[in-house]
């Protein structure tokens, strides 16, 4: 059947497109908000204006990113009603409830203090401003938590019974703390931290290459790299643990990720395919380059542990293999690359101190260029990771309980084509414009204005009843 006339495919394509676009923005918002809070707290505590200038500079990048994240997220929430009506009706008691929590507890908190954080520097005391930044950071992290509760419940539904087309909640605690939540939220939250550190390191490297503001960007570069030495390997460990858990919770997804068609026989080990050409029609790989025993070792920590192959599942219960298989490999490669860059740079900072000073650091061309590449690598990793997670869940919208085809609204095909096309045009234009403006911010660089007032001296603030204009 022609995919562009298939309503289920069109609704999936639309949601997938919106989601893949949306997820490019909030992770940086979440991680950067925490970093901004740290910088601002350092300013308030030490009164060192360096931290103030750092906070102001990264806030500009935060601002562009936040705006695009908010407006691209709005359609996701509404998509459940417009395109996934039967799913919404079936799962609303839990899933809608959780989205309700997210909006009222977290999203509103973020929005309620965002104006003060971005435009309130001259209008509130430094302490109050720090509080506002803290609320934005807390709100965005809490928002990620509730969203991951909702998403992980779709991966490993618990605490519900599916009766007569309706998910009836039997246990809220089990439903919220479903088996995937710790891994799902942990992996996503760590991704937010990691991508923010990568952006700080990469952008700092950009200035160091250009020999601009080296005294300003060398410290941010160093601290981001040092933090990444801990965060990047930790993220790989969390991911590995999440992958291992799939053997129990979503074995078909695991088999698809590894392009493993047949369960290994007792006494033998399941091999790990580095590369393969999966052939779903014939239920085999046309060819593969694999290392024996490794999949068994990774999943079961025993070289001959049993790992279920895809042929254990009926054809109609199998996820597509190609995207999870390659998406996973791309994600892992990107994650390892970032960890490698962090470790090698730490070694330089430790053993080659004379090359890493403000007046000498720009000589390390390849190292700094490598950091420029970590930025796209981190974004590719997030996109690839979500493709693995969501395509690997297919053909289920709620794993093992409700099929994606049962969850879709019957919207006429021409209407779906119109909305998909509209989203693609709008998002592409917005994405390009955001990148252009981001480039403008980078070209302009930091502004070293004096702070409007010294931190924590509320009585000295002039109360000026006027609106900040757009300068």
């Amino acid at each position: 059947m022609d995919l562009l006339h298939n309503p289920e495919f069109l609704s999936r394509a639309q949601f997938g497109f919106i989601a893949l676009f949306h997820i490019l923005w909030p992770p940086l918002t979440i991680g950067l908000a925490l970093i901004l809070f740290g910088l601002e707290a350092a300013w308030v505590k030490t009164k060192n204006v360096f931290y103030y200038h750092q906070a102001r500079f990264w806030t500009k990048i935060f601002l562009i990113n936040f705006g695009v994240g908010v407006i691209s997220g709005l359609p996701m929430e509404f998509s459940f009603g417009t395109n996934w009506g039967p799913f919404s009706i079936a799962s609303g008691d839990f899933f809608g409830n959780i989205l309700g929590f997210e909006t009222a507890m977290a999203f509103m908190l973020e929005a309620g203090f965002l104006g003060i954080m971005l435009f309130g520097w001259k209008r509130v005391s430094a302490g109050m401003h720090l509080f506002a930044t803290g609320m934005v950071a807390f709100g965005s992290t809490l928002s990620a938590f509730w969203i991951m509760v909702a998403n992980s419940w779709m991966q490993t539904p618990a605490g519900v019974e599916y009766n007569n087309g309706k998910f009836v909640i039997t246990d809220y605690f089990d439903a919220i703390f479903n088996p995937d939540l710790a891994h799902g939220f942990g992996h996503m939250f760590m991704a937010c931290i990691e991508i923010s550190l990568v952006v700080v390191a990469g952008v700092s490297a950009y200035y160091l290459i250009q020999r601009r503001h080296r005294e300003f960007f060398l410290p941010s570069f160093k601290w981001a790299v040092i933090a990444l030495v801990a965060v990047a390997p930790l993220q790989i460990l969390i991911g590995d643990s999440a992958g291992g858990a799939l053997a129990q919770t979503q074995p078909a997804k695991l088999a698809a990720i590894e392009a493993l068609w047949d369960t290994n026989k007792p006494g033998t080990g399941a091999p790990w395919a580095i590369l393969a050409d999966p052939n779903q029609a014939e239920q085999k790989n046309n060819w593969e380059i694999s290392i024996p025993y490794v999949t068994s070792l990774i999943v079961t920590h025993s070289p001959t542990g049993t790992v279920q192959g895809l042929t254990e599942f009926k054809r109609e219960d199998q996820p597509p293999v190609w995207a999870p298989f390659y998406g996973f490999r791309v994600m892992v490669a990107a994650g390892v690359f970032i960890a490698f860059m962090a470790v090698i740079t730490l070694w330089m900072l430790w053993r080659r101190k004379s090359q890493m000073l403000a007046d000498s650091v720009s000589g390390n061309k390849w190292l700094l260029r490598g950091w420029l590449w970590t930025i796209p690598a981190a974004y590719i990793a997030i996109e690839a990771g979500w493709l693995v997670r969501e395509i690997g869940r297919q053909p289920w919208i709620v794993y093992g309980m409700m099929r994606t085809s049962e969850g879709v609204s019957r919207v006429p095909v021409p209407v779906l084509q119109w909305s998909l096309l509209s989203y693609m045009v709008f998002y592409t234009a917005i994405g390009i414009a955001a990148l252009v403006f981001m480039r403008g911010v980078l070209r302009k660089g930091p502004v070293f204005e004096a702070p409007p007032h010294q931190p924590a001296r509320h009585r000295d603030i002039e109360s000026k009843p006027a609106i900040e204009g757009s300068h």
Partner: protein
Amino acid sequence: MEAVAVDSTHHLLATIWFLIIGLFLVIYVVLDGFDLGVGVLSLFVGDEPRRAAMMSSLGSIWDANETWLVVIGGTLFGAFPLVYGTVLHGLYIPIIVMLLGFMLRGVSFEFHELSANKPIWSFTFGLGSLIAAVAQGFALGGLLNGVEVIGGRFVGGAMDWLSPFSVFVAIGVTAGYAMLGSTYLIMKSRGMMQDACFERGHLLALAMMVAAAAVTVWTPMQYPEIYTRWFSTPNVYYFALLPIAAFGSFVMLLRALKKRYEVAPFVWTTMIFLFSFIGLAATWFPYIIPGAVTIDQAAAPSNTLVFMLVGIGMLIPVMITYNIYQYVVFRGKVDPDHEHTY
């Protein structure tokens, strides 16, 4: 859906959630109403400094205003999943158009700040605001016109929302938002900009009232059961209070505009919105999808409603408090004729 037994606890919880979402809706319509309204009005302003001043009067608060819609979406999804899954499907086109409008105006705020070519982004801000306002009007019109739901599924057509009636509602909503925007700008500006807002106030107020009157007359004609409900005694005495109160507010609004009060016009416009909304809610209660689905049928089971009440209900005063605080921080006026004041 018919399997939901009528029990009094569930009915009470459903009613509470109907009222909470109603409260959110009123807050949203007033706040984002003036927000979108300022955008619509900016299309009729010739020079860039004025449009920039209009945008900067919203710069710090538009995101929070729009977030009330996100909160309505989330709470509606949880408390009344059936409404979420059918009405949004039925109103697919106006909803998507509204979202596209929001996107356009949302990015315009940021890009206007950063761009060298400001007129482009102040125009897209106005255009996006107009698109979103008109689309909301059509969505409301489509909902009042009836969203066809049978057996928990939307069974109508993709263009059901479009009718002469919904065109009228869309004009009314857009005029009402422009009126809110105008009266907001009266509070936030001075000089020539404020004068312009006082002058066009009468016309917008009239357009808004004509549309509200049309909905009031049309509804009982379309739905005989509403006719009976409104005009039976003693109901008629209660229902009559609402148009009287709305008309009283209208008179007070015109008076406030004439006397050039700064805050009163916004308050009276808000009152007109409030009475119209109460009128709609009282007319249709306990229906949540007019003529098709009641709150008891649409509501999630009691355990979800209680759980949400615990998680969200207690936060409502907190949410309102920090939103008010943000307005207090950014109080004061913008004035394009006197650069130094903003």
